[in-house]
């Protein structure tokens, strides 16, 4: 037996630091935020300060004590601890007279003032309930759950991950992620064969969750191009992942309003000729765009009004000073604007360079846009024999998508799916599926491109990518 001994790990990586992106957890509720000192944050209707979490290890459970401060919780996680109480076989002896609880509200307030923690208060409530033991397991659980929500305030500080953030979004703000359920996102990443070193296109309106999930799976290797609609790429959710800075070097963005131009070879990513100014360095565009054979358009503009380090010249009068200040302000603003535009241009150029080869390795779509049009537009950038995954909250648009892909050819392995997710309570003599379950996790259309995709024929090539089925071949019933 060849036993490889583990190297001692550096705790530093596991210590909560100021400025870290973390996720607070209480029960099944999550909240992502940045650790800031002396900042009041609201979580589950409770104000608290994260200051005392700094320096502690990730996954530490804290109790919220007076003043909203956190105090490390030495005991084991409380979850399920009160569940082991003895359960009555049935509720036959329970009379609902509202007198079963011996503790009064005042008693409870006193316990709280004494600094009793949530878990202890619940235990007190159980001990002082004359009916708890006689309740059925179902009723006991309902009781504990209700009380927990009211009195317990154990909070765990977690390192963010795709798993946690996906559960957080789906649980708290499903509309922000187009109701994408975490297990559906899991399918997307796997069916999209997302992995380090590949070049993946992402079109999403899921607050950046899908983009972040793809980046996590790429681990900082390869390139991700966010194809975005509208004026600016939206991806607040990516921040919550707390990626190391070099991850962001792998992230590119391309506004879809330039897709047609790029495909037609008419997209000019060279420095723009502006009416007021054309301060651009044509060499930089090439530098960023790297080793591409891209048509850079009509060449860059000429030199400009000098760099930001322009030497200052002193003059004597106040008026001159004022005028100068004014001029400078104006110039700075202009300069800033130019820098921004230049950055934007460079970004566009670098993304265009990645796209132009039409050799992307993966395409992930999850948005409130009509998936059919988005997919047909963006699939052109994929290399042959590469997977694509389209998510939609609704099945109807994916039916259209499926039909159009079948008609135009150039794809195989088309599959339209949905999935259901079921959680279980596993406890001695009380094992059963969790009573509430998600009603749906959305729909996925997945497939693989073929060489035909490139020589895409508008019509007449129906299902040309399916080998002709010989008579002896029994095709499965699930394909049109």
């Amino acid at each position, binding site marked *: 037996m060849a036993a490889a001994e583990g190297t001692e790990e550096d705790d530093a990586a596991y210590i909560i630091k100021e400025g870290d992106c973390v996720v607070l957890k209480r029960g099944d509720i999550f909240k992502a935020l940045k650790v800031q000192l002396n900042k009041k944050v609201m979580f589950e209707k409770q104000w608290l300060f994260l200051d005392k979490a700094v320096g502690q290890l990730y996954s530490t459970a804290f109790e919220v004590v007076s003043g909203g401060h956190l105090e490390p919780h030495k005991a084991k996680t409380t979850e399920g601890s009160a569940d082991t109480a003895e359960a009555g076989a049935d509720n036959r002896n329970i009379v609902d007279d509202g007198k079963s609880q011996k503790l009064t509200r005042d008693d409870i307030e006193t316990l709280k003032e004494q600094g009793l923690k949530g878990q202890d208060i619940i235990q007190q409530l159980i001990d002082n309930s004359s009916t708890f033991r006689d309740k059925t397991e179902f009723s006991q659980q309902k009781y504990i759950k209700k009380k927990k929500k009211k009195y317990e305030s154990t909070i765990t500080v977690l390192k963010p991950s795709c798993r946690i953030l996906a559960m957080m979004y789906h649980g708290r703000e499903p509309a922000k992620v187009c109701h994408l359920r975490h297990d559906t996102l899991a399918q997307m990443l796997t069916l999209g064969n997302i992995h380090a070193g590949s070049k993946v296109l992402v079109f999403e309106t899921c607050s950046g969750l899908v983009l972040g999930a793809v980046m996590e799976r790429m681990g900082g290797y390869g390139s991700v191009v966010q194809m975005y609609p509208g004026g600016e790429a939206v991806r607040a959710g990516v921040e919550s992942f707390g990626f190391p800075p070099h991850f962001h070097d792998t992230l590119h963005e391309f506004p879809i309003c330039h897709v047609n131009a790029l495909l037609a070879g008419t997209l000019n990513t060279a420095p723009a000729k502006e009416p007021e100014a054309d301060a651009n360095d044509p060499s930089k565009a090439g530098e960023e765009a790297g080793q591409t054979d891209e048509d850079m358009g009509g060449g860059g503009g000429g030199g400009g009004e000098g760099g930001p380090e322009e030497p200052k010249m002193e003059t004597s009068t106040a008026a001159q000073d004022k005028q100068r200040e004014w001029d400078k302000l104006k110039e700075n603003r202009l300069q800033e604007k130019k820098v921004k535009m230049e950055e934007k241009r460079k970004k566009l150029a670098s993304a265009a360079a990645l796209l132009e080869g039409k050799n992307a390795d993966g395409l992930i779509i999850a948005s409130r846009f009509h998936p059919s049009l988005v997919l047909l537009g963006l699939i052109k950038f994929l290399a042959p024999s590469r997977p694509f995954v389209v998510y939609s909250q*609704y099945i109807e648009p994916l039916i259209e998508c499926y039909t159009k892909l079948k008609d135009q050819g150039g794809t195989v392995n088309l599959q339209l799916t949905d999935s259901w997710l079921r959680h279980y309570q596993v406890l001695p003599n009380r094992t059963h599926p969790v009573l509430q379950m998600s009603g749906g996790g959305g729909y996925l259309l997945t497939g693989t491109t073929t060489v035909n995709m490139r020589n895409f024929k508008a019509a007449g090539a129906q299902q040309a990518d399916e080998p002709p089925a010989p008579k002896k071949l029994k095709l499965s019933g699930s394909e049109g």
Partner: protein
Amino acid sequence: MSFVEYSERIREGDVVIIYLGHESMMPVKVQAGGKTQTRYGAIRHSTDLIGQSFGSKVTCSKGGWVLVLHPTPELWTVSLPHRTQILYTTDIATITMMLELKPGSVVCESGTGSGSLSHAILRTIAPTGHLHTVEFHQQRAEKVEQEFQEHRVDHLVTVRNQDVCREGFGVAGVADAVFLDIPSPWEAVGHAHTAMKRHGGRLCSFSPCIEQVQRTCEALTERGFHDLSTLEVALRVHGVRSVGLSLPDFGPDAGPDAGETPAPAPVHTSVAIKTTIPPREMTGHTGYLTFATKPRT
């Protein structure tokens, strides 16, 4: 009205279902001179209900209106006063078919609970069948008996207040079907066998936990039941919606100037589709239904 027979018009003494809005209903016993408060105002039984057609609109005192519906076991299930966890229509429908209930069936049930299933059984076995229902909780047994009277189905049912695990159903050799919804159904399997007809019949046991199912299946097999089948049915209610899907703007197709100036933030148009959305949360589990056949003995 009765829960086993439709009527056209409301009479005194009827129990009617007041429909206040989607999934908001309440049962009301109609009494001459009676008055019922709703959030839309009061309903005066003598003028607003008696003599009216079931399915009518009733204008309440505050000017709002409600609908008055004929009771059915299904409307009762969604509006009855809960004294226990109850069985819902999805399970009830499955139980009714899998127990092969029909007019004339003799059925044993325990526990009666809030009577949700009992009403559905009575509807199906009327006018010639009978339900023997056993409830150990005295208050509940009394309450449900009173409801059966008010619902005019008391001639079809016998309520017994006893412990089915110890004392059984109080009948022998008469039942076509037995239904168990008790914490330890395995303790009642022998009594179920006794209650059933010599030539055989069907049994169903409802249990939330798999351990209960396992023990019950063992007891059923030991007692000679066969064709054991454990299943679950879950219902999903789809919301019908009109939703808008944005259309992507991939920009102008070609032209030498394309891309020269930054395009303004494009205005996306959208298309509307009719679709359904699932509920965020649905009832994923109520309990396991275990069915078995008692052979001829």
